[in-house]
C-alpha cells in the first residue's frame, strides 16, 4: 500500500509552485537557477508518481531524461551567469534589461 496518487501530484505541483514563486520574486540569477531546479524536481515527482501508479518504468526513464536536461540547463545557465558577471560585476537580473552592452 502506498500513498494516493493525488497526494503525489499535489506535492509535485506544490514544489513546482514554490520553484515558480521563487523564480518570480528572486532578484539574483543564481537563486533563479536554483528555483528552476526546484521546478524541474517538482515535475520529476509527478513522473515518478505516475510510474509507480501504473507500475511502468516509463516515467522513471523520463525522469532520467529530465535530469539530463536539468544538468545541461544549469551548466549553460551558470556559464551565462559567469559571463554576465564578468560584464556587469553583478548577478542581479534586473541589470540585464538592455539588449546591448
Amino acid at each position, binding site marked *: 500500500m502506498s500513498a494516493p496518487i493525488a497526494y503525489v501530484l499535489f506535492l509535485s505541483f506544490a514544489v513546482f509552485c514554490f520553484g515558480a514563486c521563487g523564480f518570480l*520574486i528572486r532578484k539574483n540569477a543564481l537563486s533563479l537557477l536554483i528555483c528552476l531546479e526546484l521546478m524541474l524536481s517538482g515535475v520529476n515527482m509527478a513522473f515518478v508518481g505516475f510510474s509507480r501508479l501504473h507500475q511502468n518504468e516509463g516515467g522513471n526513464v523520463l525522469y532520467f531524461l529530465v535530469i539530463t536536461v536539468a544538468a545541461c540547463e544549469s551548466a549553460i545557465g551558470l556559464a551565462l551567469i559567469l559571463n554576465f558577471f564578468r560584464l556587469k560585476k553583478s548577478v542581479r537580473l534586473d541589470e540585464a534589461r538592455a539588449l546591448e552592452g
Partner: protein
Amino acid sequence: MEEQSHLQCIAALAVLLPLVGSALWFSLGKKFGEKFVSIGAVSFLALSFACIAYIFFTATLPLRINFFQWLPLGTSSVSFAFLFDPLSLALSMVVTGVGTLIHLYATGYMHGDAGFGRFFSYLNLFVFSMLMLTLSDSLPGLFLGWEGVGLCSYLLISFWFTDEANASAGKKAFIVNRVGDFGFLLAMFCIFKVFGALSIPEILQTVQAGNFSGDDLFWTRLACFGLVLGAAGKSAQIPLYVWLPDAMAGPTPVSALIHAATMVTAGVYLCCRMQPLFLLHLDVLNVIAYMGAITAFFAATIAIFQNDIKKVLAYSTISQLGYMFLAVGLGAPVAAYFHLITHAFFKALLFLGAGSVIHGLHHEQDMRHMGGLRTKMPITFWCMTIGVLAIAGVPPLSGFVSKDEILHNVWGNHDWTLVALAFTTAFMTAFYMGRLWIMTFFGKFRGHHEAHESPWTMTSVLVILAAASALAGILNWPHLWGGSETLGTYLSTVVQALIHHAEDPAHALQSSLTLAVVSSLVGLAGLTIAYFRYRNFSGEEFSSPAFRPFQNKYYIDELYDAIVVKNLRMFGKFLWKVVDGFVLDGVLNGSAALASRTSTYLRQLQTGLMQQYALWIWIGFLILLLGAWTGRS
C-alpha cells in the same frame, strides 16, 4: 533476397557517394585544400562508376531496387526506388564514366581557383542529380533529378558570378528551363490523372496493356506534348534552345560535362524512357522528328558564323541533339541512344580540347586570335583532330557509325524533307568543325599570349576520350558490315524500332554501303572546303549583308526579347505601380500603422525583466487551467 540486399547497398553507394562528396567539399572544401578535394572528388566519382559498372556486369536486368515508401498518394503511392534497365544503366555508365574523366580534367583546369571546393561540390551534386534522373523508377524521382541538374547547371554557369554576364547567363538557363519544367509537370499531372500512378514501369505496363477511351487519349496526348516541351527545354531544342549558347559562360569542364555530354541528353533519355507512351501518338513523334531536324539544320547554320570556339561547339551540340531527336521521332531510339553515347565521348573530347586550348592561351576564346597551335600543343591537337574527324563523320570513327545509322533511318523513312535537312546538316557540321580545327591549329599564331601545353591531368583525359571517340563505333557496328550491334541487342528489351528495312540482305548491304560512302563523302567535302576557305585565314572574316542574320543568330534573342521579355516587363510594371503601389501597399501601410499604434501600448509589457515574462507565462497557464476546468463541467 541476399543478392538483392547487397546490390541495394551498392546502388545506394553509387548514388550517395557524389552527394556526400558534394556536402563535404561544400562545407569543408576550404579546409581540406585543393589537393585533398581533387583526390577526393575524383575518387568518389571513380568509386561511383565502379559501383555502376559492378551492377552493369553482374545484375540480371531489369532490376528494381526499392528503398522506402516516399509519397503516399491516395490509393497508390510512390516508392523511392531505382530501376536498373539497359536504358538507365547505359546512360549512368556514361554519366559516371565521362564524369570521372571530366572531374580529373577539372582538377587541372580549375587549379588555383578560389572556389575550387565549391566547384567540385557543385559538380558532384550534378552527378548525384543526374544519377537520380536516370535511375529513378518514378516520375517524381526523375523530376527531382531533373530539377537537380537544372539547379547545378544554373550554379555552374554562373560559377564566376561576380561577372554580370555569367550571372545573367545562369538566370537565362534557369528561366528557359522553367518553361520546359512546366511541360514536364503538366505531363506528370496528366499521366497521374489517366493512370493513377507515377511509377514508370507501372505506367508503361498499363500503356502496353492497351484499352483507352478517347478521353484518356486526349490526356495522354497532352502528356506527350508536355514531355516534348520538357525535353526540348532541357535538351535545348527549338524553341527553347536559346539558353545553351549562353551557358558557355561557365567553366569549360562544366560545358563538357553538363552542356554536352550528359544533362542536355536528358531530354533524349526521357523520350526513350517513355517511348511506349509516344507510340500511342505517332503524330507527336512526327513533331519530335521535325523539331529535331529543324533544330539540327538551324543550329548548324549559326555555328558556321561563330567566332567563339565554345559557341561553335555549343551550337554544334544543339545540332547534334537535333539529330538525336530526329532519330527518336523517326522511331529509331537505338540510333538516338547510340549517337547519344558517341556524342558524349567526342563532344566531351572537343570541349575539353577547346578548354585545353583556352587554358593554354590564358582564357582566350576567340578563334580569330588563335591559329598555328599545332606545334605548340601537339597532344591537344591530335586529340582534337580525332574529335573533329569523328563529328564530321569520317569512317571508321564513332561519329561516322552513329550518324550513319541515323541517316540510314532517315533514308528508310522516305520523308525527303528530313533527308535533305539531315544531309545538309551533316555537310555543314563537317564544314564548321573543319573551320574550327583549321582556325585554331593551322596558319600562323594570331594571339597575344604565349601558348603552352596543358598539364597531364588534362591531356591524359583528352587521350582517353580520343581513344573512346575513335573506338566507340564498335558498340553498335551494324550487322550488315559484320558487326554485332551490341547496343541494339542490349536495348531491344526496353525500346522498339519502328522502321524495319524489309529488303533482302544483299540489296540492304548495297544501299547501306552507298549511304555510308555518300555520308562520308559529304563529311570529307565539308572538311575540304573548310580547309581551302580558311587555310590562309588572316583574322578578317569577310562580311556580307546576306550573312548578317546568321552572324546574329537569326535575331532570335532579340525576338524573344521583343515578344516575351518586353511584355512581361510591362506587366511587371503594371503590377508594381498599380497592384503593389496602391492596393497592397495600402493594406500593408494601414496594418503597419495599426500595429505600430498597438505596439506603442504593448511595448510597455516588454520590460526586459525575464521574471515578468515568466509571470505572464504563469498567468496564461492558469487561464488554460481554468479553461480546462470549466470546459469539463
